[in-house]
């Protein structure tokens, strides 16, 4: 099948680029995870139309590729916001007020967990442990990690982000 390429141009990504990523990585054993990571790193998500390109290149069925994408929490099938904010909701952070912090963040951003703001500014995600349990509660903003986050400190982080 032709990978539905005609529809892709408008989505702002190039099918040839996806194919090139898959070709570059396909010879390593168990290539699918590295390919999906590379595609998401490039585009921020894995478009539905990329599935058949990846499947074709790796000689897998589309169902196999879709099954892997849908299994892992990290893989997204929609474009995320410009900044991804992940809030740890696991036990250690709960012991230090993460539930109240999560509520504050939801209200501050006007977003539920898993949602992206309409203007594409933020995506809010839950995460179960960032390994920052000695400095709970913890959040991650992009690749930057923050510990001992209070509602006030969160607001400061967001203000600083706006200045960047």
């Amino acid at each position, binding site marked *: 099948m032709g990978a539905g390429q005609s529809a892709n141009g408008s989505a702002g990504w190039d099918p040839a680029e996806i194919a090139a990523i898959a070709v570059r990585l396909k010879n390593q054993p168990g290539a699918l995870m590295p390919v999906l990571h590379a595609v998401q790193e490039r585009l921020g998500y894995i478009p539905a139309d990329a599935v058949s390109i990846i499947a074709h290149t790796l000689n897998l069925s589309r169902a196999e590729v879709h099954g892997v994408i849908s299994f892992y929490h990290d893989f997204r099938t929609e474009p995320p916001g410009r900044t991804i904010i992940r809030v740890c909701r696991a036990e250690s952070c709960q012991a230090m007020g993460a539930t109240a912090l999560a509520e504050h963040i939801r209200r501050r951003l006007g977003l539920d967990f898993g949602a992206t703001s309409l203007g594409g500014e933020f995506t809010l995600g839950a995460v179960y442990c960032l390994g920052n349990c000695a400095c709970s509660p913890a959040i991650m903003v992009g690749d930057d990690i923050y*510990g*001992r986050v209070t509602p006030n400190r969160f607001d400061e982080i967001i203000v600083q982000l706006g200045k960047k």
Partner: protein
Amino acid sequence: MDALVYVPRDASAISLGADTVAGAIAAAAARCGRPVKIVRNGSRGMYSHEPMVEAVTPSGRVAYGPVSTADVGALFEADFLNGGAHRLRLGVAENIPWLKSQTRLTFSRVGVIDPASPDDYIAHEGHRGLDRALTMAPDEIVAELTKSELRGRGGAGFPAGIKWKTALDARADQKYIVCNADEGDSGTFSDRMIMEGDPFALIEGMTIAALAVGATRGYIYLRSEYPHARRTLATALAAAHAKGWLGAKISGSRNAFDIELRIGAGAYICGEETAMLESIEGKRGMVRYKPPIPAVEGLFGKPTIVNNVITLATVPVIFDRGAESYAATGTGKSRGTLPFQIAGNAKRPGLVEAPLGITIREIVDGYGGGTASDRPIRAVQVGGPLGAYFPASMLDTLLDYESMAAHGGILGHGGIVVFDDTVNMAQMARYAMEFCAIESCGKCTPCRIGSVRGTEVIDDIIARRRSTENLSLLRDLCDTMKLGSLCQLGGLVPLPVLSGLKYFPDDFGLTAADVEFIGPDLAINTAGAAKSDAIAG
């Protein structure tokens, strides 16, 4: 000569501002024309004082902490580069009692060396274990590990020597070493600290494992939530290649070994070894049936050693100092040390490496200093999200594999999460089931459906809806999950639930008599269950 300053690159230290502190020190040094070399070390694990900055002086590395950017100017004025007096001065780092009293074997170099420097690694007793292993035959290496009585530090506590022996005895054209770096348990961060603070120890441990069983390829399966560890590992792997420690002829021997870094994608279940193998193979992280065990038929169907980061990073010190020396610490069948991690509501959270057999109280009160909120400790959860909750009255329980099992708990990966008296244990029990529902791979019914029903049933109990019937249902559900689940996700999630019920029945609107069906070891007394069913019927 340049003044030498250490500022941690550890992710938790960075989460408290270590990067900006390093930047401020560099800027202040430039302003006053004082040449300063900043080394980014790992963390010593005393997170109450991170970012902890150390200045190299003739009398040792003098520590200051917790340092914020606002303190940097005053530190220069106090001549901290020469160990000058300042209110943040903690003295020579190695002599700080919190650190000095620990037994650091696995963590001897973490926070001390530059994790990106193979030369620093060599200068601090690195590579000596491998040098010795290179003179030994594979069965001698396995025998030495067996003699150390090292048990898997990921949580299962399986004797590492037996696993290695099984893989050694398996005949195959290809074998693998897989490092489980999918440290997903809340309250644990020791794997992360090793990878960020002493990555060459992990590489060396994996290489010794490869020599032992005749493996030529290794994988480190790292969780995606650890971008800092990823960068440090990538740097260390490249440096190890450049040094000839990995590649076609490791350290000048005739053995080939290479390690590839693979990144997970946010699935807790991939910390289960067979789900991890599926994930490396490019599949959904679904748990496999056992047997066959991975040591016989693992990655791509080949014999595979799967060990946790701490297990593998402990191998070099065992070979350097000898198995007897390692086995001389610890208690009973739990030999050696464990890097305990104090997390949650603790005044002095962090990493404490101590011999197995220390009490919970020594860790959470002695090192942890009680709660950060200055309220009484009400509960501690030992061993991650699948570990039991213990009440304050049980803090004298020993932290070793056998004692934990006798009290219905698990040691897990050595994480201890502290809760003060504001915790609602019914909510924590509910969360345990909810977490299991979110992270279940879905292969077996007890875990997939049981965790969803468990959440609903606990909700009903919390809402006081038909508590007696629902409690009976929850008891049966926990029994089914414990006995019928394919792996320990569904199999152990009854522990936090049943321990919550047993020790904190008030939080569920229940009495101690209501939960008598739970034995002291958290096993369900089914004889009692039959009786109460008969009464209910």
